[in-house]
């Protein structure tokens, strides 16, 4: 069963430049969350703060009663064993082949025999579809393969929390779809807490249980998927539907003139909310809620055409 991450009042700045301030949210145990945000809003910084690679200026990140922001280095290394992290480029060790890369955490942290290691590694390699590529060096394979190998390595210690730093950047749509399905299946299988940082809205609309949006140096909104997808809040609406009309401009924010110019523009209607991706075996995940559940419970009418199977996946169309 996954572990909850409680983030409170988290603030980080580099020098005088504030990255984000006062971020407060709870990543529920065992659920899939997506953190969205325009490029350069510090999504990766947030991820690195969660695993203690960067120290926040203020605030706390509590996991199983330990505050990552203030705990000792020894505790930090201990708590990190709960994590599996997929870095943007996979971050494979360039001097080892894929097999040794995936086996590395097992050899360092467990006393398993080589044959046990082999079984686990091959199982994870099969999971990400890399059987046959064990002897390749990270430099010899494509970016997508590196990413999948990074995922295999992140999963090898059976983590309680899995963090993904842009799993879909640099992947073709088919591989992205496979990876998204893999994420959902994995969550059903190991019940870990998943946090995905991305700016791919298709992923954000169909994969998670919860969505968060970082914008303009703060957390604009965090909540259940249906809440954000049916939200009329300008920033959330603009981002989740990839529209040009709204407060987000080409360079961070739009100025007053630009906003005034588009004041009278009619906003396109909210697109229907798509169905959530389901595990391939048909068994619902533990944290999965029936479609439309949140909307009904909160008296929100979802946009027409929502939760229909075989619906167009193209947002904003």
């Amino acid at each position: 069963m996954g572990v909850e991450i409680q983030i409170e009042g988290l603030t980080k700045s580099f020098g005088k430049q504030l990255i984000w301030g006062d971020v407060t949210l709870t990543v529920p145990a065992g659920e899939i969350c997506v953190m969205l945000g325009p490029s350069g809003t510090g999504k990766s910084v947030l991820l690195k703060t969660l695993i203690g690679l960067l120290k926040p200026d203020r605030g706390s990140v509590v996991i199983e009663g330990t505050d990552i922001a203030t705990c000792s280095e020894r505790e930090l290394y201990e708590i990190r064993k709960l994590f599996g992290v997929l870095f943007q480029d996979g971050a494979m060790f360039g001097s080892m082949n894929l097999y040794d890369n995936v086996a590395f955490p097992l050899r360092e942290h467990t006393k398993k025999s080589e044959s046990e290691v082999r079984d686990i590694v091959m199982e994870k390699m099969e999971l990400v579809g890399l059987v046959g590529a064990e002897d390749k060096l990270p430099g010899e394979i494509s970016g997508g393969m590196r990413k999948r190998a990074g995922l295999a390595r992140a999963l090898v210690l059976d983590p309680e929390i899995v963090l993904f730093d842009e799993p879909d950047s640099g992947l073709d749509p088919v591989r992205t779809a496979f990876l998204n399905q893999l994420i959902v299946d994995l969550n059903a299988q190991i019940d870990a807490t998943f946090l995905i940082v991305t700016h791919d809205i298709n992923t954000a609309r169909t994969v998670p249980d919860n969505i968060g949006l970082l914008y303009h140096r703060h957390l604009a909104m965090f909540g259940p998927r249906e809440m954000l997808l049916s939200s009329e809040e300008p920033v959330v609406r603009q981002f989740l539907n990839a529209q040009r009309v709204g407060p987000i401009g080409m360079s961070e924010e739009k100025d007053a003139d630009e906003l005034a110019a588009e004041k009278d523009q009619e906003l396109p209607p909210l697109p229907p909310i798509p169905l959530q991706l389901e595990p391939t075996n048909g068994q619902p995940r533990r944290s999965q809620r029936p479609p439309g559940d949140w909307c009904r419970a909160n008296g929100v009418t979802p946009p027409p055409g929502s939760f229909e199977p075989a619906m167009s996946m193209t947002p904003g169309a």
Partner: protein
Amino acid sequence: MSSLTSSRALAPIGTAGKLFAFGLDVGRGLFRRPFQTREFLQQAWFIASVTIIPTALVAIPFGAVIALQVGGLIKQFGAQSFVGSASVLAVVREAGPIATSLLIAGAGGSAIAADLGARKIREELDAMMVLGIDPIQRLVVPRVLACMLVAVFLNGLVSVVGVTGGYIFNVVLQDGTPGAYLASFTALAQLPDLWQGMAKALVFGLVAAIVASYKGMNAAGGPKGVGDAVNESVVVSFMLLFVINFVMSAIYFQLVPPKTG
């Protein structure tokens, strides 16, 4: 504004402090188990392989130029019988450690900085920390120890090759007598000269590896950052090693009185 200038003026002190703190971290990592024997052996072999040939090639002209200088000077003094002794003294006391420091910082240190810098840029070090492994213990400590070990051996190599080079140069080109050259070896030189050369080499290896690791692990800003880190690590360690060489020589002369022939 004043705070800006003061912070800029104080920045080098901050860097020196961070380097020192990094050195302390490495010192602590030395005693943490499990010791990475495999990495240590691999690194020792690697550093030796990139430094041995350049060191030998540097040591031959180094020994020859000392023989040339000292031989000429001593002839002017009319003390030809001490040529061997003087050149042994010069090679073992100074030339050995200096050539070692140049090679260990220039070849070994730059290789370490480049390797760790590339790993830092590719997020490998982050990945390692996230997997619960301390890169200082796993990567830096074996490199520092390997560098120290290789430095001591290199110092021995430079001494042997330098003295041989000096001998050949003196006997073949300067018409010195082999017997007089060899006989005067121990006239001025003494055993502590050898020890201090080794001690210097040990410290040089330590400092060069720590500077290189520090610079490599703090590389930032993409591939250019790695190049900058390598460049800075070589410059900084050269400066440090020459200062340390001077200080250790000064201390040595205070501790060990020169032999009166």
